[in-house]
């Protein structure tokens, strides 16, 4: 076989050779950039430290970082242009993704430097680079890395530096991730009871991949009761996987072919974009909603059938095949609950257009304002198109156990259930966990008399604390009675009101060890919105608000200084 060995391992075809060649060029450019960075860092380190020279050095530093940024931007742009002209699709996409990311990092690195941490620039680059130049990953593997990195960078930073009352008081407080941390005491106590610790042989053996029958039966009973279904739900229509994102990913796989799309009203939970793209390569087409109240909009960010029709028409015009509509109810990040009538309208719109409806009701038991009635889609007397209506629910939010990894699908379509079920062995849940979940869902008495009332009471209190604070700060927000978060408007702190400024403000929160989510992550059309999660313990919440106010104060101060400087110039 030796005659083969000379040519074999190289990727066959000219295209592939080109990719390799271009990759090499990329590497060279990256090496150059790194070299430059190192020089700058050395330069910074050598800066004189005496007080008199410090002022001068500061100016120099600012200047040099500015030059540096310009240079890097220039280089990256050149690189992108070069690749655009020559490289193949996959790589090009990566690079453009990367370039966005890099530029972000260059800027944040600049800030890091001005707060005298010269090491950071190189460090951040080295975080990105391996994912990009790796010869060991496929293109899609590299893309997954870059995408993941860009989406979860902050989250990873938080995982490594969490605030802890006694051990790490300077750590991150996370009001960005939607987790309910208010009832951990109740859950811990319940999970510690002896009925949770049963070990049977069926739990340790290969399961039914759609979920153990005992759990699917319990889920069906649970949803029948809490969704107020007119008739008993069927366990055969239930599929149980390790989390709602897995359910969504599998649904995208079996409902769409690659390149097809779902409609989704924005702002929406950004995880959907990740889940539909990562494996399934399904696109999300935003139905943009606006905060302004007009004749058609009776409340901010109102979803109307007109807007749905409009987006669908646009999609058809662009020759995009739309397969479904994704709704979240209660809405995330708005906290809205759809009325029965609007829900019906949306479903009828979908039916008219042969669209599936995926409806995520993961916050259905987190409606803490008693005056609000939540209507599950499963409560409807007659669904317009039952075989195309697919409901997702899980315990992550309503029971505050995101670490359990449990998500359930309920669909009337046996076909969809069985197709999603074929992904079961890639998204399966441990039998032991299935037993615990079953015990938890079965304990109606505990849920109704202890857990839910306490949880709602604590959510109300935390919500009231935050909304009062926001009011006193004169920060506009949507006051809703469901979910774990508040959608707040920080437009007035942005000058100018752009997504770039939004990003900078977000960064500033992070620099002050406070995690919030910015509107851009929800594909919100208007800059300046943030999602603030309030379902945390009072102590952390208080500290978080302190940090929050500090940042806004800084931001205001900066603005004033800038105005002053501008005025002086004139």
């Amino acid at each position, binding site marked *: 076989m030796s005659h083969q060995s000379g040519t074999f391992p190289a990727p066959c075809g000219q295209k592939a050779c080109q990719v390799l060649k271009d990759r090499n060029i990329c590497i060279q450019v990256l090496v150059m950039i790194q070299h430059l960075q190192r020089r700058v860092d050395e330069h910074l380190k050598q800066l004189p430290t005496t007080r008199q020279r410090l002022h001068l050095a500061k100016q120099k530093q600012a200047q040099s970082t500015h030059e540096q940024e310009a240079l890097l931007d220039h280089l990256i742009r050149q690189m992108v242009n070069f690749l655009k002209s020559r490289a193949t699709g996959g790589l090009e996409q990566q690079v453009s993704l990367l370039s966005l990311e890099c530029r972000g990092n260059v800027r944040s690195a600049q800030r890091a430097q001005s707060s005298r941490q010269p090491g950071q620039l190189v460090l951040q680059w080295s975080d990105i680079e391996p*994912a990009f130049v790796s010869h060991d990953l496929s293109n899609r593997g590299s893309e997954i890395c870059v995408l993941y990195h860009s989406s979860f960078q902050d989250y990873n930073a938080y995982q490594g530096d969490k605030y802890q009352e006694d051990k790490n008081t300077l750590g991150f407080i996370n009001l960005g991730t939607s987790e309910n941390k208010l009832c951990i005491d109740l859950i811990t106590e319940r999970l510690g009871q002896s009925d949770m610790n049963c070990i049977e042989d069926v739990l340790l*053996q290969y399961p039914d991949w759609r979920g153990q029958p005992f759990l699917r039966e319990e889920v069906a009973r649970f949803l029948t009761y809490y969704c107020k279904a007119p008739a008993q739900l069927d366990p055969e229509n239930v599929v149980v996987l390790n989390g709602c994102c897995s359910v969504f990913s599998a649904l995208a796989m079996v409902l769409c072919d690659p390149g097809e799309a779902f409609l989704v009203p924005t702002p929406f939970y950004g995880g959907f974009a990740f889940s539909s793209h990562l494996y399934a390569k399904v696109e999300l087409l935003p139905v943009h909603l606006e905060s302004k109240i007009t004749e058609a909009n009776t409340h901010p960010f109102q979803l109307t059938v007109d807007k749905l029709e409009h987006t669908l028409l646009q999609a058809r015009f662009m020759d995009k095949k739309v397969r479904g509509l994704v709704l979240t109810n209660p809405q995330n990040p708005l906290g809205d609950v759809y009325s029965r009538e609007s829900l019906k309208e949306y479903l009828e719109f979908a039916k008219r257009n042969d669209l599936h409806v995926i409806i995520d009701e993961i916050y259905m038991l987190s409606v803490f304002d008693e005056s609000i009635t939540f209507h599950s889609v499963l409560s409807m007397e007659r669904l317009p198109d039952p075989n195309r209506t697919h409901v997702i629910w899980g315990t992550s939010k309503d029971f505050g156990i995101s670490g359990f990894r449990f998500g359930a699908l309920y669909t009337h379509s046996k*076909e969809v259930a069985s*197709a999603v079920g074929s992904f079961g*062995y890639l998204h399966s*849940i441990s039998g032991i966990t299935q037993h*615990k979940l079953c015990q938890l869902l079965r304990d109606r008495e505990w849920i109704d008399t202890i857990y839910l009332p306490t949880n709602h009471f604590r959510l109300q209190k935390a919500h009231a604390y935050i909304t009062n604070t926001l009011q006193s700060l004169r920060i506009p927000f949507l006051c809703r009675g469901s979910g774990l978060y508040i959608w707040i408007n920080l437009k007035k702190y942005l000058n100018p009101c752009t997504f770039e400024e939004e990003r900078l403000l977000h960064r500033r929160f992070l620099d002050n060890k406070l995690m919030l989510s910015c509107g851009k992550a929800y594909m919100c059309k208007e800059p300046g919105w943030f999602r603030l999660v309030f379902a945390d313990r009072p102590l952390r919440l208080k500290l978080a608000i302190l940090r929050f106010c500090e940042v806004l104060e800084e931001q205001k101060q900066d603005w004033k200084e800038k105005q002053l400087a501008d005025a002086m110039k004139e």
Partner: protein
Amino acid sequence: MSTLAQTESGTPTTCAGPASTQDLGSSYGDCLQGECSRKPDQKLPELHGVGDPVMFSSNSSYLSSRGRMIKWFWDSAEEGYRTYHMDEYDEDKNPSGIINLGTSENKLCFDLLSRRLTQPDMQWVEPSLLQYPDWRGHLFLREEVAKFLSFYCKSPAPLKPENVVVLNGCASLFSALATVLCEAGEAFLIPTPYYGAITQHVHLYGNVRLAYVYLDSKVTGTDTRPFQLTVEKLEMALQEATSKGVKVKGLILINPQNPLGDVYAPGELQEYLVFAKRYWLHVVVDEVYMLSVFEKAVGYRSVLSLERLPDPQRTHVMWGASKDFGMSGLRFGTLYTENPDVATAVASLCRYHGLSGLVQYQMAQLLRDRDWINQVYLPENLARLKAAHTYVSEELRALGVPFLSGGAGFFIWVDLRKYLPEATFEEELLLWRRFLDKKVLLSFGKAFECKEPGWFRLVFSDKAHRLRLGMQRVRQVLEEKAQVAEDPPPCQTQEPSDQRR
């Protein structure tokens, strides 16, 4: 020498070309549901059907074309599994039900496991276990896995927790590795017979295919034993795949081997790794049976024990609790790779393949308990495996049935070629069906892509009473068959020359 398992279906709507449909059918046959076999009379729809809405249109209007294909393969596989599940053997309730000697599960040590898992240290609940985790796996578990593998794989230097990624089972791990190492349509080399479920694992999300390295039972040339893997065969398979325009990205090795129950000698392993390095191939080594080597004389060596790996950046090892700890329902699988890019890329997918925090905690407790593992669990487990193996091999010998078994794993690779009137896979399926009619479930060779019809995998790691009953039923079928075929068919004479036990 090699055949491609699947057609390329990277393009959006057309998923399979006509030429490949037969391959698709055969490779999907078994193993989907806890590796059970497909109903033999299940036939693929006509060629152009796969991916063509017209062919799948009968009440299938709710799924996309790939969704229809996924469902079709699933349903056809589930058929056989359903037969078993509708009529599962139960000592008291259903004594005439089906005995499952087809699924590779260790049911011998449930008593030890349940005792250990119900001890108070297993019931720990704390907030961090209930919240979103580090997607690579909790650090405490990754540390424990690194220590565990260092010890049991006899690694020359301590293994590092940052090279460990934890997922919900090895199926997920195959899927994730295929996705991040290959583009859609690219392939892994795999020696056959092999654990057939891998076909589905790498295809479902990853759209990656397998290029087979066919091995023969006949000992020829430089081979010293049946189904021997050699570098020459690897070279040929690689060459053939390439000549068909298929890009091969890696090699999958299962060690101890499934279904052969054999282990690779360290020298051989080294050769395969050097071969892979020569062609820039990744090597995925599935060592999920590494602690189930019950024959003391067998010198098993983990790839992690090698003093110097030829290409450490492209060598990825997987292990899990399904086999060695008999807990396939726990869903624990782990990757060890020195390549940080691969670890990060797999971890990026872990949002979708995560494991409950409480189970991660229990797993760490179990792996940490070296006393229990070394003094209670392993000795007892290996003794029970050996006893069960001895019983089944005695039975087979009494029946005059040739078989292969290398002292590892839960199964014996049985040569029933002489019971086939004709050496075809149709006859193999008929025989398999005959077993099922007699209420014993085995796995047939085609499900492992064995090139020669007539091989079956028989799992022996079950409780004595079930095993005895199962073997009785096997004996019944074979004796009946022998009576029917009074004139011995010509293929009967061909037997593996080296019968290992």
